């Protein structure tokens, strides 16, 4: 893609006049409301946008953002990070993963620490980069530690598809893909004995557009129809988020709870059917997947179907992988933050014992995490 085309993709969506225009429209709608509203941005990408562009500063006081569990790095439990660490430390393994994942601390340390001790850990931009690495290292086992929501799952499936079709025998998969609607449902349905008013505080959801590019907006129908919570599927530019908030405010004032698409540039109700078929072919749901800070969430994770077990690193390395449960750090309130009960500043270790350079909790690890975004962009302002 040339830089000029790329510029065209975002220029208009950061236009100061448009942003200020939405600021006025939102303020007018907010005045009509006789209550406060809590809008949850499910995805860390939206948290990042809201904090980076200072959007909270543009909104009336009766609009409150609560940050959801949608960061694939933040929600990775220590048990799974330990798997990655153990695999990376094998002498004949090259461990591949995506970006920030190498910073997440497990109980032995992070992948970054494993690398400092001599492990061959690499981050890739695309899972397809694994093909070249596998070819250049035919005597090694290449383990792709696959993470991410619906957005990155098709890329993992596409890599497996190529691996099988080309008969490549040294690429294996450790699957940690998770799905968005199930955890949103968990946020509403679950009850917590430690919190007096666990009944969810979520008045509306901002749905991540990139998830819906793959899965369609239809995956959120449940929330608008059964739970009567408005959902607006929105892009990640400041104008996108401001427009989405305006759409929500209108829904509140008109007494609606609809599923709407703000990001009509690429999202349809059906999504990318080809990608969905590829995912369906290679993956199936696991009954429980543990989310860091949140515990086990039913039907929220994926695994390779049994017929592809020959490519499954969890099968191949079954004898060396640890399976003991590990508790989260006692002082860390990431669980409450991911569920929308607490803001990062309410954590006693925020910005002191827990910083991006030495994270205790998952929300501080990834640049998409709520604590990291607050620390980076707004810990005083």
């Amino acid at each position: 893609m040339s830089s000029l085309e790329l510029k065209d993709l975002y220029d208009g969506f950061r236009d100061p006049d448009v942003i200020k225009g939405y600021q006025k429209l939102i303020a007018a709608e907010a005045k009509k409301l006789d209550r406060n509203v809590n809008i949850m941005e499910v995805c860390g990408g939206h948290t990042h946008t809201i904090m980076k562009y200072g959007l909270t500063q543009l909104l009336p006081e009766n609009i409150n953002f609560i940050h959801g569990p949608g960061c694939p790095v933040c929600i990775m439990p220590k048990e799974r990070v330990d798997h990655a660490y153990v695999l990376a430390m094998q002498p004949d393994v090259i461990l591949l993963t995506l970006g920030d994942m190498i910073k997440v601390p497990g109980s032995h340390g992070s992948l970054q620490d494993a690398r400092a001790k001599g492990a061959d850990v690499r981050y890739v931009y695309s899972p397809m980069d694994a093909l070249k690495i596998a070819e250049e290292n035919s005597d090694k086992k290449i383990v792709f530690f696959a993470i991410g929501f619906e957005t990155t799952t098709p890329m993992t499936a596409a890599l497996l598809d190529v691996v099988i079709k080309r008969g490549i025998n040294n690429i294996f998969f450790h699957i940690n893909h998770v799905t968005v609607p199930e955890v949103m449902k968990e946020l509403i349905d679950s009850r917590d004995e430690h919190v007096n008013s666990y009944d969810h505080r979520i008045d509306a959801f901002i749905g991540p557009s990139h998830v819906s590019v793959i899965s369609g907006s239809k995956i959120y129908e449940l929330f608008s129809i059964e739970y009567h919570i408005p959902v607006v599927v929105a892009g990640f530019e400041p104008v996108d988020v401001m427009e989405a908030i305006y759409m929500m405010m209108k829904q509140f004032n008109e007494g609606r709870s609809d599923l709407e698409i703000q990001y009509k540039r690429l999202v349809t109700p059906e999504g990318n059917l080809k990608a969905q078929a590829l995912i369906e072919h290679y993956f199936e749901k696991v009954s429980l997947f543990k989310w860091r800070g949140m515990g086990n969430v039913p039907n929220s994770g994926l695994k390779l179907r049994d017929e592809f077990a020959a490519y499954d690193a969890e099968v191949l390395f079954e004898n060396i992988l640890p399976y003991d449960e590990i508790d989260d750090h006692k002082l860390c309130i990431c669980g409450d933050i991911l569920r929308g009960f607490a803001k990062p500043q309410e954590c006693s270790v925020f910005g002191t014992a827990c910083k991006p350079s030495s994270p205790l909790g998952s929300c501080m690890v990834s640049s998409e995490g709520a604590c990291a975004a607050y620390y980076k962009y707004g810990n005083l302002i």
Partner: protein
Amino acid sequence: MTKNIVLAQGNGGQENAELISKIFYKHFKNEILEKSEDAAIIDGGRLAFTTDSFTVSPIFFDGGDIGKLSICGTCNDLAMMGAKPAYMTCAVIVEEGFSIDDLEKIVRSMKKELEVNQALIVCGDTKVVPRGSVDKIFINTTGVGIVQKSGISSNCVSEADTIIISNQIGRHGATIFANREGMEFSSALQSDCTSLWPLVEKLLSEGIRITAMRDATRGGVAAVLNEWAKQSAVCIEVQEESLPVSDEVRGICEILGFEAYNLANEGTFVLAVKSEDAAKAVAILQEFEEARYASIIADVTHQYDGRVVLLSAWGSKRFMDLPTGELLPRIC
């Protein structure tokens, strides 16, 4: 701090600063070192003295190579203290199997850049190490410069100053990333790798009252501004829109989730000049091809002492912090 060195500790950001202060400054403590300037001012203020080691992959990149970098980097550190580069050392650690042709190409490139600075390599050292002990070639250069204008210091920035950037930011970091990862762009993205003494000499000769200068290498503009804000106990308020960023760099930042102000530069510097001289300084800089995008980017206040604030075009503000961790692409 971690028990073992990790890559993030060489990022020019927070972890790097922590490593330097807790290990090196702790044991080497002295008055000159603690000034934490680009180059040490010695010999009663007559000389500037600095050293730098260069490791870059790939060693040949769009707009330069490790040889050019090794001269520019050290000479620029001298220039930033108002010193004319004069004498240099060159120490090379080269890996067994390295191509002699490439070595000569690198040395020729160094020679060319020495001429720009009118500096001389007056002594050196060469070590060859077994394959795998270093990544191809590491070069260390040390430089001595003659101070032409004394008193330039990152500890003296005040409300009387205006902050200027000499060119578009982040080009070196973005080029290295693109070259290393084989990213192809239709337009020519080149490192800004260049020698800055000719620009500084001109500013001084025109009487621009410079308070501080620093080339925005690893850690980028964010690291320089944060260091100044802390060292001078002031708040630097940056207008985000005024930061010059090329479309190519913006493109790479968009794709990978980086901020241009965190990316390295090798020929772009930040200046704090007396506010009345700011417009003239920008005009002088813009006469040079390598500073044609020079602009005023920030004011100095006391709103949040020790911090850098970024002001958006739509009225919001946030802190521009030191970069942390390795520069890693965003996942989604």
